[in-house]
């Protein structure tokens, strides 16, 4: 006999915390996603009443059934201590680099920007995207291009007058990557970012070109 509703701990193929509805068209609902959508709904109404919560759940379930997402395990894990560290570092970095960008805006001499490639250590799409988002929130660089196959971020760095500054920009990206993955990553990814940064592929790129 087929179950009408399967919870994810009975079926290891399903992503964690999800429900499968067996019917003519098989639908999988992601419970954390529904909880998150409901939370946003309640916050948008800005009053916590039962009516809001119930309508929020109804809207979220309807949305997830009408626009089903691909069933993948994103690899999102929440580590509270890591999130606190990431947030503190981001705030501190926003302040210091805000000062830096302000100084560059009012500097009279022209500065030389550069585009650098930074190979990352994490491999999952979500961690790549989260690292890109946190990197572009701090004024160290803005992301021009993300290469998924090699997990490389290409950054535009505002002041690149000296090679040390480029090295510092790379080191900052790796630091942010490690903090981001320690906040949201799976254990496997955390192990990956604990290793030292990969060597730069810049030299062999130059050889192929010439």
């Amino acid at each position: 006999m087929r179950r009408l509703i399967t919870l994810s701990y009975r079926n290891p193929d399903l992503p964690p915390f999800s429900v499968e509805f067996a019917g003519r068209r098989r639908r999988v609902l992601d419970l954390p996603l529904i909880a998150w959508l409901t939370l946003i709904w309640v916050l948008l109404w800005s009053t916590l009443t039962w009516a809001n919560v119930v309508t929020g759940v109804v809207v979220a379930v309807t949305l997830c059934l009408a626009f089903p997402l691909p069933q993948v395990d994103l690899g999102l894990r929440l580590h509270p201590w890591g999130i606190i560290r990431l947030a503190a570092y981001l705030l501190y970095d926003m302040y210091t680099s805000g000062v830096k960008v302000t100084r560059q805006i009012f500097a009279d001499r022209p500065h030389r920007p550069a585009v650098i490639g930074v190979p990352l250590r994490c491999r999952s799409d979500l961690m790549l995207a989260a690292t890109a988002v946190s990197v572009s929130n701090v004024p160290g660089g803005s992301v021009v291009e993300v290469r998924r196959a090699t997990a490389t971020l290409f950054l535009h760095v505002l002041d690149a007058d000296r090679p040390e500054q480029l090295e510092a920009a790379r080191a900052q990206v790796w630091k942010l990557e490690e903090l981001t993955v320690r906040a949201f990553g799976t254990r496997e990814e955390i192990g990956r970012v604990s290793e030292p940064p990969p060597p730069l592929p810049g030299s062999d790129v130059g050889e192929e070109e010439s």
Partner: protein
Amino acid sequence: MSAWLQITDTAGAVLVFLGAAICLLGVVGMVKLPDVLSRSHAATKPQTLGLLLVLAGVALRLRSGMDLATLALIGFFQLMTGPVAAHLVARSAYRTGQIEGGELLFDDLDAQLTQPGQEPGAGPEQDAGSGRS
């Protein structure tokens, strides 16, 4: 009690003022900086910091639970969406050649884009996907 209210009100006003001043700095940067990519630095980052400060100031003035949560939601979405918009602007600016090649000190991306076979998904480096789902 009213002294505390006075203090938080003043602190909130100061934070809102600071945030607005930082946003203004970003606008000055957009006018002064030379090219698209540098301007996108000035357009996104001070705005984010300024908006967060304004939200903190407003939170100090409002002081009620649901409003604080809504403000946190606004800040969260600003942090999530700003980089995406900035990245798309930067990417299209780079790919349509809005960047003066001589202005850059050096450029890792140019070699990658001009080499065939290095496009995403077409390269030989597919062994990277061990942990990718």
